[in-house]
C-alpha cells in the first residue's frame, strides 16, 4: 500500500536536564535515570508548535526530494496544536506553502501509526499519492511541573515522514482498550452564560497500569506479526518502540531475547515526546545511514485512550 520516501524531525532548543528537575521537585538524577533512563528533554519556550511541525515537515520533504507542491495531503497527529481551529495540519500547510487537504488526528502516543494506517487506506483509494505525516507535540503545556512522578517524563518535539504508493507495509494494526481513567488530561472550559470556567487539567497517568499495558501490548503484537506473517523477532532488523520509558523497552527486549543494537533509543535525550517519538527516532537512524534497503522495521506505540498501534514496514530507500 505504501512506502516511506522521506523522514524528518525538529527539536526545541531549550534542554531541561535532570539537574533542572532536582531544583524544582523532590527528585534525584539517580532516581530518574534508574526508573526511566531519561537524562534530558527538550522543551518549547518560544514560538508555536506550528513552527516546529513545519520544520520537521520541510526536513522530511527535503529527504524525499519533494516540494510542498508535490503533496496531495497532510495529516498531523497531535494532542493539541496552537489553535483549537484551524488544525495544526492546516497551519503547517500554510507555513510550508503546500496546496492540499490537511487534517489532524488525535490518537495520543499511537498517533504516528494511526496516521500511517489512515494514509495507507487513502493511498490504496488511488485518490492520493504523496502524503506528509507529521507527529508534533508540545506536552509541556499539559505537564504539572510540581508533580515529580510525571514532570520528568515528557518532552516536546516533532517527527515527520513522507509516504507514497508502494508495497512496503507488511502489517499494520491499530486499536483501543478501555482505560480513560488511566491516562488523561482534561480540557478547559471558558466562563460564559452557559458554562462555568474550568481550568485545563494536567496530565495524569497511572504509571504501573500503563507500564503493564505497554509491555503486554508490544509483546502481543510481536506474536501477532509472527502468526500473520511468519516473521519472528530474529527476522526483524529494527524495533522502533514508542520512547515512553527505558524500562518498558528493556523489558520487551529481554523477553524477545534480542540484542540492544536492534532497539535504537532517544528517550534518554528527549524523554517521552508522545506521537513524535517514533518518527523522530526513525529519522535519526535514517540520517545516520543505518537502515539498509530491505530491512524490516517493527514499530509499536501505545498511549492515552488507551490507544495502540503496530506495523511492520520494509525500508526501501
Amino acid at each position: 500500500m505504501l512506502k516511506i520516501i522521506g523522514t524528518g524531525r525538529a527539536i526545541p532548543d531549550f534542554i531541561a536536564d535532570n539537574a533542572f528537575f532536582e531544583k524544582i521537585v523532590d527528585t534525584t538524577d539517580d532516581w530518574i535515570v534508574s526508573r526511566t533512563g531519561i537524562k534530558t528533554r527538550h522543551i518549547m519556550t518560544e514560538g508555536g508548535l506550528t513552527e516546529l511541525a513545519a520544520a520537521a515537515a520541510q526536513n522530511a520533504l527535503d529527504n524525499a526530494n519533494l516540494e510542498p507542491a508535490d503533496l496531495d495531503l497532510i495529516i498531523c497527529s497531535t494532542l493539541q496544536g496552537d489553535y483549537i481551529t484551524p488544525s495544526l495540519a492546516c497551519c503547517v500547510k500554510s507555513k510550508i506553502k503546500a496546496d492540499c487537504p490537511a487534517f489532524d488526528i488525535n490518537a495520543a502516543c499511537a498517533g504516528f501509526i494511526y496516521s500511517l494506517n489512515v494514509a495507507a487506506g487513502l493511498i490504496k483509494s488511488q485518490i492520493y499519492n504523496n502524503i506528509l505525516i507529521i507527529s508534533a507535540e508540545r506536552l509541556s503545556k499539559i505537564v504539572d511541573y510540581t508533580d515529580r512522578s510525571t514532570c520528568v517524563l515528557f518532552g516536546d518535539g516533532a517527527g515527520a515522514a513522507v509516504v507514497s504508493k508502494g508495497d512496503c507495509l507488511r502489517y499494520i494494526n491499530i486499536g483501543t482498550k478501555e482505560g480513560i481513567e488511566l491516562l488523561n488530561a482534561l480540557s478547559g472550559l471558558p466562563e460564559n452564560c452557559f458554562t462555568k470556567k474550568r481550568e485545563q487539567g494536567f496530565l495524569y497517568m497511572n504509571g504501573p497500569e500503563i507500564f503493564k499495558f505497554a509491555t503486554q501490548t508490544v509483546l502481543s503484537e510481536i506474536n501477532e506479526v509472527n502468526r500473520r506473517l511468519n516473521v519472528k523477532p530474529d527476522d526483524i532488523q529494527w524495533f522502533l518502540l514508542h520512547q515512553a520509558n527505558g524500562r518498558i523497552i528493556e523489558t520487551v527486549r529481554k523477553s524477545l531475547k534480542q540484542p540492544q543494537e536492534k532497539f535504537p533509543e532517544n528517550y534518554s535525550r528527549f524523554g517521552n515526546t508522545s506521537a513524535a517519538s517514533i518518527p523522530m527516532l526513525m529519522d535519526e537512524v535514517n540520517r545516520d545511514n543505518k537502515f539498509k534497503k530491505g530491512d524490516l522495521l517493527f514499530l509499536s506505540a501505545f498511549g492515552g485512550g488507551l490507544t495502540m498501534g503496530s506495523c511492520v514496514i520494509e525500508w526501501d530507500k
Partner: protein
Amino acid sequence: MEISEKIISLLSQHKDIPTEKISESSTMADLGMDSLDYVELIMQAEDEFGITLKADSSMTTVGDFIEMVKGAAK
C-alpha cells in the same frame, strides 16, 4: 511446583538473588525492588498462573504477594 515456590523462583531469576536468600517475610526493599520491578513480577505471575492482577496494587512482603496470587488463582 507450589505457587510460593514458583514466585520465589521468579523473584530469584528477576533480581538475580539465590532462592535461599528469599523468604515469605522478605520485603521489596530487602530484594532491591522498585515499583516497576513489582509490575514486571505481576506480569510474570499473570503469565505463569493465567490470572489477572492489578498493576497498582502493593506488596509489603513476598508472603503478601503469594497470598494475592493464590486468591486470584482460585
